[in-house]
């Protein structure tokens, strides 16, 4: 087993397009690292460079202690699971899993043992003689994972392995892969564009945008302490409300002002942004930190009249879309609250959980991120 280290990793395509801009990342041995980001953020390219399918044009990749830049994919001791499974359609499940071992000239008996063991782990024992086309999507993906397991590689690479599955199966496979990681304890790198997958599976998450790392941290830290507006907006569903505001200090108390809002911020936040008196910032607040005033009757300030646009009832919670100062917000609330679309309603902002971001650098002013 081994960790993976990316050092100033760069990828420039022959046409001059630079996809990856000097990525530095240290993935610990046995860690489940998730690369997440919108399409085009080069998360797959980075993974493919680790796999050796994409040429590295700058920087270094270490797997364990070894620099693998010029090492063939087959000698990197990795296994990859692809989005469309990439099973060999003319081979049975057994042969699909056994092939890689056969290529490595593993003794037949050992091949048999390893394939059967992998099949057992994944519940494929009864399907070993079937062809891929006789399997369902979830089963095919399990075979693809099985093919990776039999190699017992140092590092598992997953390239959006669940995006071809339907929603229900995706949740199920998500849990299975997590369980697998707990069992095998290998280093795994998992690429996805789905932030729910990232949040639920990763030991740590690497959020990427346009070929750059935006933040690397544990799911909880990413959610609670986003380093910048991109991570703030990307992680969490529905995403964080981000609005333009101006900070002012009155008698030592910090306020965030918009056209009609005068939000009083807690002193501990105020202390951290003293130098921003009179400056424009982005104010971020998660939907669960805005509720109807009805839910918090003791509130004495930080509630404002808003126009409710749409109310989405999820059963266990409701999402309230409303406008205030021409900004659209979303609030997450208890379903017991009686609000209809079209209402004018007082919304309460729980300012203990606001985030403030510099307008120019878009960095979080309150929580300085730990570096990964």
């Amino acid at each position: 087993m081994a960790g993976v280290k990316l050092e100033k990793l760069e990828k420039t395509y022959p046409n001059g397009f630079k996809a990856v801009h000097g990525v530095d990342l240290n993935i610990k041995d046995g860690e489940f690292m998730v690369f997440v980001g919108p399409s085009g953020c080069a998360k797959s390219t980075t993974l493919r460079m680790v796999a050796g399918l994409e040429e590295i044009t700058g920087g270094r990749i270490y797997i364990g202690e070894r620099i693998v830049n010029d090492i063939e994919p087959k000698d990197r001791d990795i296994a990859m699971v692809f989005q469309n499974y990439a099973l060999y359609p003319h081979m049975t499940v057994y042969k699909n899993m056994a092939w890689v071992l056969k290529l490595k000239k593993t003794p037949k008996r050992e091949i048999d043992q390893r394939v059967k063991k992998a099949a057992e782990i994944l519940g494929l024992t009864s399907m070993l003689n079937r062809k891929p086309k006789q399997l369902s999507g979830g089963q095919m993906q399990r075979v693809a994972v099985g093919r990776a397991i039999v190699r017992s590689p140092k590092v598992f690479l997953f390239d959006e392995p669940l995006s071809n599955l339907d929603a229900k199966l995706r949740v199920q496979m998500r849990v299975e892969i997590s369980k697998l990681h707990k069992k095998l304890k290998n280093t795994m790198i998992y690429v996805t564009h789905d932030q729910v997958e990232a949040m639920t599976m990763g030991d740590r998450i690497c959020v990427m945008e346009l070929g750059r790392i935006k933040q690397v941290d544990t799911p909880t830290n990413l959610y609670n302490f986003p380093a910048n507006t991109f991570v703030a907006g990307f992680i969490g569903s529905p995403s964080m409300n981000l609005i333009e505001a101006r900070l002012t200090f009155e008698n030592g108390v910090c306020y965030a002002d918009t056209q009609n809002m005068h939000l009083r911020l807690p002193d501990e936040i105020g202390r951290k942004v003293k130098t921003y008196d009179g400056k424009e910032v982005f104010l971020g607040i998660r939907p669960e930190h805005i509720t109807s005033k009805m839910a918090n009757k003791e509130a004495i300030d930080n509630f404002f009249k808003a126009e409710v646009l749409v109310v989405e009832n999820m059963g266990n919670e409701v999402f309230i879309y409303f406008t205030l100062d021409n900004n659209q917000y979303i609030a997450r609330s208890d379903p017991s609250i009686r609000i209809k679309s079209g209402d004018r309603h007082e919304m309460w902002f729980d300012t203990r959980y606001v985030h403030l971001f510099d307008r120019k650098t878009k960095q979080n002013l309150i929580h300085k991120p730990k570096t990964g």
Partner: protein
Amino acid sequence: MKKGPSTTSFFINGLLLVICLIWTLPTFGLLMTSFRDRDVVSKTGWWTTLTRPSQANLTIDNYKQVLSGKKITLVDHKGNKRTVRGDNLNRAFLNSLTVSIPAVVIPILIASFAAYGFAWMDFPGRKILFIIVVALLVVPLQIALIPLLRDYGRLELTGTFLAIWLAHTGFGLPLSVYLMYNYISQLPRSIIESAIIDGCSHFGVFWKLILPLSVPAIASLSIFQFLWVWNDLLVALVFIGSKPGVEVLTQRLLYMIGSRGQDWHLLCAGAFVSMILPLTVFLSLQRYFVRGLLAGSVKG
């Protein structure tokens, strides 16, 4: 609204029926005539075989005569004996096979290699080379006949099977490469990448993955190439010439038309001998034929 499609389909089916009849009727006539006695052929039409079966006197003597390579004695329905010289289509049939099989296998194998290279291997000039190969599709093979013949003359290849295998390989390659490329480039990239991570070389990927997965394309292309080579007269005429013992079916048939222009019963039998193999190939592989035509245009 419902009437529209049904009238349209009526017309379409009607038209197809007419086309089928136009094609099948003469072929059927040919088949009938090939089994009729030579005296009857000159007196009555083939349809009398159906209208007056009792007077048909169907015989396989025509086939005996055209196939045989030696002089043979035939006995007609009246008991008259006559000795005739066979047309040796037997030998020509074998020659045609000897020409066709390598002339199908070689170009398709080379084309598959080339198509894999063009589709999945990175090398400088890949695009321009592929364009050149495809552009060769528009060059008529007649242009190459004379220069090739000269070179063959110098290499003393004229009149050999090797000459015609090479010629058919060359003429067949552009289309084969193009069709195989269309198919192979549509195979999912991740399968190939997965095999490469598994430790397969390019050759291994080709041999163990691409070839087995390309069976439908290879089958349909084989049918095309086989029909073309089997029915070819021009290339055979130029490169084999009139060398006895090497002549292919089409050449023998041409010769028969010259020497036995009046003997319809023999010409019909000869024609059927030359048709029988393509017909068998087509009928047994028609599944691939239809699917292969769609190769590359429709996914899956």
